[in-house]
């Protein structure tokens, strides 16, 4: 599904290299977790994959089902099935959450040559999905993320994911800021979407989320590289001992 090869990325404005040769392959149906110290480049990787400005890809490639992602506009990547749940969801004053969701769903459908969703159908679907995530009607009416609590913002990301039904979902620290119950809701939301045609890349600092969303593969990222890849036990090891041993082992 997602294939990242030797990805090198530097900042456009400065001579700062952030990703120094990332290799990563995620197959359909799999859940991969990425852990790693602060500042190791996890968010940068997710931004570069989704097409944010400000980065220069100096080498390497990233494909989604064989299509080169890095040459597409952000909206084309989304229509191709890529989704990023932001570490810091963005507030957009004046744009209603519902309007935003419907515009996004229909824009993607249009881009794929599918029929747009009627207002009535959309409302039904969004209400049902919001309910399972405990997002109330008021939050749907309010401007996107404005005045939402940290946890509400994260649940709103998952609602967007549930509505857009992407095939490659990247979750950047969706668990941080969530209380125990909300974490369960989010995990349930993710698990409900798990199927053979979809894959997840879950960036997290904590084993806790991975108790709910069982990963097939765990990667450790440090200083712009994947330095170790293993099974779920790798996350447990990090939880217990931190990164020191792993970093020492690699060096």
């Amino acid at each position, binding site marked *: 599904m997602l294939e990242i090869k030797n990805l090198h990325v530097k900042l456009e404005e400065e001579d700062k290299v952030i990703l120094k040769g990332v290799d990563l392959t995620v197959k359909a149906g799999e859940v991969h977790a990425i852990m790693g110290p602060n500042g190791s480049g996890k968010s940068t990787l997710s931004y570069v994959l989704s097409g944010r400005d400000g980065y220069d890809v100096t080498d390497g490639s990233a494909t989604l089902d064989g299509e080169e992602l890095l040459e597409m506009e952000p*909206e084309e990547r*989304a229509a191709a099935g890529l989704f990023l749940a932001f570490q810091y969801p963005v507030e957009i004053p004046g744009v209603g959450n519902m309007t935003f969701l419907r515009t*996004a*769903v229909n824009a*993607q459908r249009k881009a794929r040559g599918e029929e747009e969703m009627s207002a009535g159908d959309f409302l039904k679907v969004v209400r049902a999905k919001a309910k399972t995530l405990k997002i109330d009607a008021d939050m749907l009416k309010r401007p996107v993320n404005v005045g939402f609590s940290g946890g509400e913002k994260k649940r709103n990301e998952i609602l967007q994911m549930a509505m857009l039904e992407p095939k490659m979902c990247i979750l950047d620290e969706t668990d941080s800021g969530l209380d125990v119950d909300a974490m369960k809701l989010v995990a349930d939301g993710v698990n409900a979407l798990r199927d053979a045609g979809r894959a997840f890349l879950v960036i997290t600092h904590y084993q806790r989320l991975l108790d709910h969303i069982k990963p097939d593969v765990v990667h450790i990222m440090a200083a712009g590289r994947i330095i170790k890849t293993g099974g779920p036990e790798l996350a447990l090891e990090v939880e217990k001992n931190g990164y020191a041993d792993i970093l020492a082992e690699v060096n």
Partner: protein
Amino acid sequence: MALPQAKQGVLAARIAGLSLPQGGWASAARADALARLSAMGMPVKRDEYWRYTDPTSLTTPDAPRAAVFDASDEAPAFDGIDAVKLVFVDGVFDPAQSDDPAMAGVEIDRLAAVADRDIHWAQGLYGVLETHGQTPVQRPLAALNTAFATDGVLIRATGKAAKPVSLIYIHRDETSDAILHHCIKLEAGAEVTVLENGPAAARFTKVMEVDVAEGARFHHIRTQGRDHERRAATHIFACLGAGALFKSFTLTANGVMTRNDAVIELLGDDARAHIAGAAVGDGDFHHDDTVFITHAGLRCESRQVFKKVLKNGAVGVFQGKILVKPGAQKTDGYQISQSLLLDEASQFLAKPELEIYADDVKCSHGSTSGAIDETALFYLRSRGVPERMAQSLMVLAFLAESIAEIEDEAIAEDIRSRLEGWLARHER
């Protein structure tokens, strides 16, 4: 101080081809206006009050040529609103396209039609608020209008009007130079909505005097037409009695030159005046909102909400003043002027002013000028919303606060969907 030769020269040239209507109830007001005008001369670029807007094209003897824009790709603004329609083509009343103005609670006359009467209720208003509005700042174009206006509507509301009065201004002649003067008087407790739509002429010089008596409610919503080359200098002069409400909203898209002046005086206690504008300019676009609000009564509230979206070198100007007179305690004055600059070539010039002579007042003003929020734009795009559409969403969001000043939801929706349509056409 001797009047600078330049101002007199421009005035002489401007009025050389105009004739002062004689006779009838308005003739004294017209003669007075001409005297005022002669003392002031025409505005010139050096005038402080025209610092950001060059008045030249508004004061030339002839209207600069303006191509007629074909706006048939959409229904005219307010088309779906049931209203008494009065149509002016290049400033000339068109009875064939107009409705019979008879309506319960409202008396409507046309200035030109009643000009030779000896008495008319509008005598107490025509030129009166305009004269009052000449201090502390001179407004020669308004005096010119009072002197030479060829037509206009005279609306007197004694109760709640059954429908809005819709003034439709059609521009057909590339060199038309229209001068219209409206007088609107709301008696105590009356309520009326006045809609204005259209470019009116190649050049439009307009004055609207509005007297809102105790407890009366006046709503004004206008769209200034999409003609790219048209020019307009408009003035609203309003005074409010105790507990009166005045609300005015203007949507402007296109137009090479627009100067909209508003002079509002809150005279009675507990009066409220809200004035708002949304302007969307692309390229050769200069739009100036100049507002002067005076608080004289107790506990009055005023709101100014002006938003401008500018691109490809468009220029937006805002000069807004709140004057709180001695004794006008518990004044609540709010003023915000913001621009969204879609590129570096565009410009927003703002001069917010507060002048306060009472101690127990709450006044706030803010002016910002910014680019589109790139992070938000990326967020929208990452959800599959194409760039132009994402930009439109953000533009509408930016303008929302000013559109929210329209009380009537159907009219607000007309404005919103119109904007959406314009932006969507740009998306392609």
